[in-house]
């Protein structure tokens, strides 16, 4: 427990207002003062809102269904009706170039992808999958890692040794190769993955979510376990034991509240990592599966149009860059706010 004396030694200007405030309120105030982190948080929120509005945009503004290929459709550019796919190359539609960006929000704003679908609408729908998989896997990963870390750190001894070695083994795998192995193994079976009562269909968003969550568990586990170990030996835990508290009570009301801040610091950075991983797996076609789209699958689609229609891969890439960048900056801010005396810090 940080005593007032310790805070006075290092804290940023211990004013009289700080006395008696709980650490969360102090952290909240530090975060509110960090304008760059707030701006980053705002940007992330904006991206989330835009992606949530995907059906609105597709239905009411662009008037397209971005999940249906549109090889024979037409659209309007400067008042003229033009085909979405240029140069009618016979019935097979080979060698056709989709329409480029029109910069007109209601008519193929960013152009069409290789099957004539509206890129702007796909971008928003793709963002939903990317954010869903990214945030979902980060939540799952942090939850799993915290549970394992609590068990390992609290019980110690051989339990700790066993779990920690297990985490070492998972972490020894090359991250992408492990994800790829799991994904191919699950995707070779259109029937999906059956585990007891749980059934995950192969094309479901759950497949990449679970895989990505799994491969990053050791990464979160290590710092959280370290925190658990340092808390377990503290006097207030001893005091609780002396009062006759059981194991569950010790874990949930004494130790967990003291490691939560570590998890919260890691969380935005984990979402940034998992979104990048999702895009990579989808780019390699082992992530999000059709009919779903994500920013990663869009970049993959753009590969064939790289030199003729660069926006097909530029747009989703820029979205990933902005999302991950905002999360990284926000994550830095959260860490500085919650852990102002952190020894291991990237920013000085």
């Amino acid at each position: 427990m940080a005593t007032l004396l310790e805070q006075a030694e290092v804290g940023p200007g211990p004013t009289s207002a700080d006395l008696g405030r709980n650490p969360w309120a102090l952290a909240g105030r530090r975060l509110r003062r960090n304008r760059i982190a707030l701006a980053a948080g705002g940007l992330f929120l904006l991206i989330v809102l835009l992606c949530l509005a995907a059906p609105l945009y597709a239905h009411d503004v662009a008037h397209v269904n971005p999940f249906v290929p549109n090889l024979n459709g037409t659209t309007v550019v400067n008042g003229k009706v033009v085909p979405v796919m240029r140069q009618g190359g016979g019935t097979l539609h080979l060698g056709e170039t989709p329409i480029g960006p029109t910069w007109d929000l209601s008519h193929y704003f960013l152009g069409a992808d290789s099957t004539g679908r509206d890129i702007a609408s796909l971008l928003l729908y793709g963002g939903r999958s990317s954010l869903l998989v990214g945030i979902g896997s980060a939540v799952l990963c942090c939850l799993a890692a915290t549970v394992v870390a609590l068990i390992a750190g609290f019980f110690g001894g051989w339990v700790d040794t066993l779990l920690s070695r297990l985490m070492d083994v998972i972490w020894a795998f090359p991250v992408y190769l492990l994800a790829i192995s799991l994904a191919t193994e699950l995707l070779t079976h259109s029937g999906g993955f059956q585990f007891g009562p749980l059934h995950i269909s192969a094309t479901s968003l759950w497949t990449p979510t679970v895989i990505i969550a799994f491969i990053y568990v050791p990464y979160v586990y290590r710092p959280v376990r370290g925190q658990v170990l340092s808390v377990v030996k503290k006097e207030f835990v001893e005091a609780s034991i002396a009062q006759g508290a059981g194991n569950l009570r010790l874990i949930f009301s004494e130790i967990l509240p003291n490691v939560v801040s570590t998890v919260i610091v890691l969380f935005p950075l984990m979402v940034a990592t998992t979104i990048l991983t999702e895009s990579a797996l989808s780019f390699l076609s082992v992530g999000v599966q059709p009919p779903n789209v994500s920013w990663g699958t869009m970049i993959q689609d753009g590969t064939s149009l790289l030199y003729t229609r660069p926006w097909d891969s530029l747009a989703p890439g820029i979205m990933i860059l902005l999302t991950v960048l905002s999360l990284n900056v926000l994550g830095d801010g959260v860490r500085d706010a919650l852990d102002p005396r952190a020894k291991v810090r990237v920013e000085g």
Partner: protein
Amino acid sequence: MLTFTIRRVLATVLVMFVITVVVFVIFFKTPGVDPARAIAGRNPSAQVLQEIRAQFGLDKPLPVQYGLMMKSIFISRDLVSYSNQGVKVVPEIAAATPATLSLVFGAAIIWVVLAIAIGVAAALLRGTLFDPLLMVLALIGVSAPVFWVGQVANMVTQGGLHSTFLFSWVPPLGYTSFTQSPLLWFKGLVIPWITLSILYIGLYGRVLRANILETQNEDFVRTARAKGITERQVLLRHTLRTSMITFVSLFGLDFGALVAGGALLTEVVFGIHGVGYLTYQALANLDLPTIMATVIYGAFFIVLANAVVDIGYAWLDPRIRPT
């Protein structure tokens, strides 16, 4: 030191054993998945399935199955890719290794040199506008998906600007081995090197900057200044040297991970036929034996690299050796 080395080696062997068990479970024991069908790839004939069941002893007890898998990967090295006309997997991986090593080594040189330059510059220029600017650039590098950066690089160097003097020297995508033509090898790898190093320049620059700032307040730096040596010497001989510890250990781990398949995305985007590209092709064909072998070899390489880093560390710094 000897006891430490022996213990570290024993631990490494144990981890390797568990890795093979994990791979075995993933590929042979995923609930609800028939391993023979998975290994055989798309539309297998009944005969191929029969062959696989016999080769891996799928009707035999678990330890026998595990033993047969290990034998085909490490001893007889006759693991066959069914999706790829019976090509032997292990020699294929060995043949692909030089391309991966070329890519990773070159990128590593770029990122180490630039990261040190950026980290030192940012730490020295702290308080000026240069420092936050460098850090933002570094953060952008960390946040961009590497395969997309590669695509944008291709767009620029292979697209419209390819015909201009700027990028006319860039050869078409692909890899030329060093023995074939050193010049073409170099030209073809410049853009991939830069692409791969972008992520790490930012990351390492930030880490180094933080460490330098932390070290600057240490007593021994003050002592060095007090004895009257130049600022330049204080930086090079005292501050930087101590600050490099985290940098070096990170480098060992990242380098190992990249050689072991982490460079996959860069290889795919630039058509460099290394180990990662092999895995990518295997993915497209649902070629499980190849993936199985690259994963095991990759993980082994990482574990070995970690052990070497640890032992090297203990040798450099006696305080780290546990007793």
